[in-house]
């Protein structure tokens, strides 16, 4: 049976959702920012803003200079997750094999559900109509249809916004001759430079290259790209590992946090957020790393620590993070904080026996893990911010280190997992 894979990409997603919710923002240049202050970063730009030169990744200041009349709103992660859930529910009615790739894109395996690409195109156009009718008229999406996920992603990139593009193996050579190497998923400026060193300047040249040469020069990545561009499905290419390598939270720290002495509290909040996600995934961390950006130096100080024994306990994680902060920071002005939990594994179940020489104080008879689990139970009933540790209070009160939306992070606080 001929494989038919579709890739659906919601265009300028966060900005489109904001324009959908608020009609006065429609047809205007709009930037969605993680935080609405000078160094806050544009995480999505509306189609109109992109046309005028706004780019994702610009700071708010840069974006204002690039598009003087633009409006900016702060991201609302619960809103985007909820809309994604409704969109994906529609996708699931077309095929039993729907693979979310990120918060705004998914692959649909239509093999067996459609006779050919034309029928798939017809079905997917109806999906687009359903998104318009059931969720909102201001949510454009691009559709790509091809025999593999890699080629379907290239196809959906071809016509934006609201396009539909089909790639067949017969027409592949003609297409690859005219597109740029950087159009290929996973190929950036650096990779393009490396390809040019071995005489590969177009995707077509990559397709015709010797895989042995690619393997020698670029390792597994080179071979995977060659296989993908030749229509061979590489299962590992777009799939996320079952156990993530790390879980982290970062925050571009505003001046106010420094002035009011809230750096330790903000770090405690970031650590608690990372710990919450760790426990929701039922994992434990064997390592913890901390990055502190210091304003005066313009540098980032970094330290990491092995956690012995491994833990998912918020109290232990916060204590360890605070200890690392003490090593890196002596009351300077902080501009950036990032906590990352590393070397993640499912809990081994190994009981840790207390050392014979360990001094048993009164507090050591309290099982702090029970306290931590109790906190989680209260939060699961009354909300993530219903109960928290005193050290987080200052940051919580001033809404520091808010929940951030990541493109590959579909779940988060407030995400409803009910079907």
């Amino acid at each position, binding site marked *: 049976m001929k494989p038919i894979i579709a890739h659906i990409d919601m265009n300028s997603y966060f900005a489109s*959702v904001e324009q*959908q*919710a*608020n*009609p*006065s923002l429609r047809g205007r240049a709009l930037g969605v920012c993680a935080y609405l202050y000078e160094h806050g970063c544009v995480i999505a730009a509306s189609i109109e803003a992109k046309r005028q030169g706004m780019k994702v990744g610009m700071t708010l200041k840069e974006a204002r200079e690039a598009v003087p009349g633009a409006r900016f709103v702060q991201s609302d992660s*619960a*809103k985007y997750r*909820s*809309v994604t859930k*409704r969109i994906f529910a529609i996708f699931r009615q077309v095929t039993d094999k729907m693979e979310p790739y990120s918060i705004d894109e998914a692959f649909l395996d239509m093999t067996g559900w459609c006779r050919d690409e034309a029928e798939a195109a017809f079905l997917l156009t109806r999906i687009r109509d359903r998104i318009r009718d059931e*969720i*909102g008229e201001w949510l454009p999406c691009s559709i790509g249809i091809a025999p593999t996920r890699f080629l379907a992603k290239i196809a959906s990139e071809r016509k934006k916004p609201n396009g539909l593009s089909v790639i067949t193996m017969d027409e592949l050579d003609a297409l690859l001759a005219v597109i740029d190497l950087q159009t290929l998923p996973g190929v950036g400026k650096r990779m393009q430079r490396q390809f040019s060193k071995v005489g590969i300047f177009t995707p077509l040249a990559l397709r015709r290259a010797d895989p042995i040469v690619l393997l020698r020069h670029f390792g597994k990545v080179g071979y995977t790209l060659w296989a993908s561009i030749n229509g061979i499905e590489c299962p590992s290419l777009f799939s996320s590992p079952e156990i993530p390598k790390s879980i982290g939270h970062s925050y571009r720290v505003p001046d106010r946090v420094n002035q009011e002495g809230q750096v330790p509290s903000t770090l405690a909040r970031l650590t608690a957020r990372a710990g919450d996600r760790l426990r929701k995934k039922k994992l434990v961390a064997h390592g913890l790393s901390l990055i502190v950006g210091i304003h005066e130096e313009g540098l980032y100080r970094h330290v990491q620590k092995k956690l012995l024994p491994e833990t998912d306990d918020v109290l232990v994680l916060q204590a360890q993070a605070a200890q690392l902060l003490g090593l890196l920071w002596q009351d300077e002005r902080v501009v950036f904080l990032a906590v990352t939990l590393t070397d993640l594994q499912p809990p081994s179940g190994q009981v840790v026996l207390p050392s014979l020489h360990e001094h048993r104080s009164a507090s050591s008879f309290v099982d702090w893990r029970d306290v931590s689990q109790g906190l989680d139970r209260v*939060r*699961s*009933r*009354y*909300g*993530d911010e*219903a109960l928290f540790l005193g050290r987080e209070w200052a940051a919580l009160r001033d809404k520091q280190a808010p929940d951030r939306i990541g493109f590959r992070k579909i779940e988060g606080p*407030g*995400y*409803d997992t009910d079907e």
Partner: protein
Amino acid sequence: MTYEQVKQPVEVVVVFKQRKPEPFILKWGKRYIRLRKVHLVHSERIGRDKVYYFSVSDDANAYRLSFSTETLNWHMDEVRVLS
């Protein structure tokens, strides 16, 4: 005022269209507001409560209403002047 966060309790008349609820008339203070369009509906889980948010508008303003399935209360969260 172009945008204001209000968070005030409101009374809402809802109609069911194609088995889905849509806010129809809003009583905010002493004013009755006939809503013209529902632009977006989204939800958020806050502990065991599930809150539905309705982004709606009349001819002059856009509003964000929230409905708590735990307390069965409606709130007006935001008002924005349409321009």
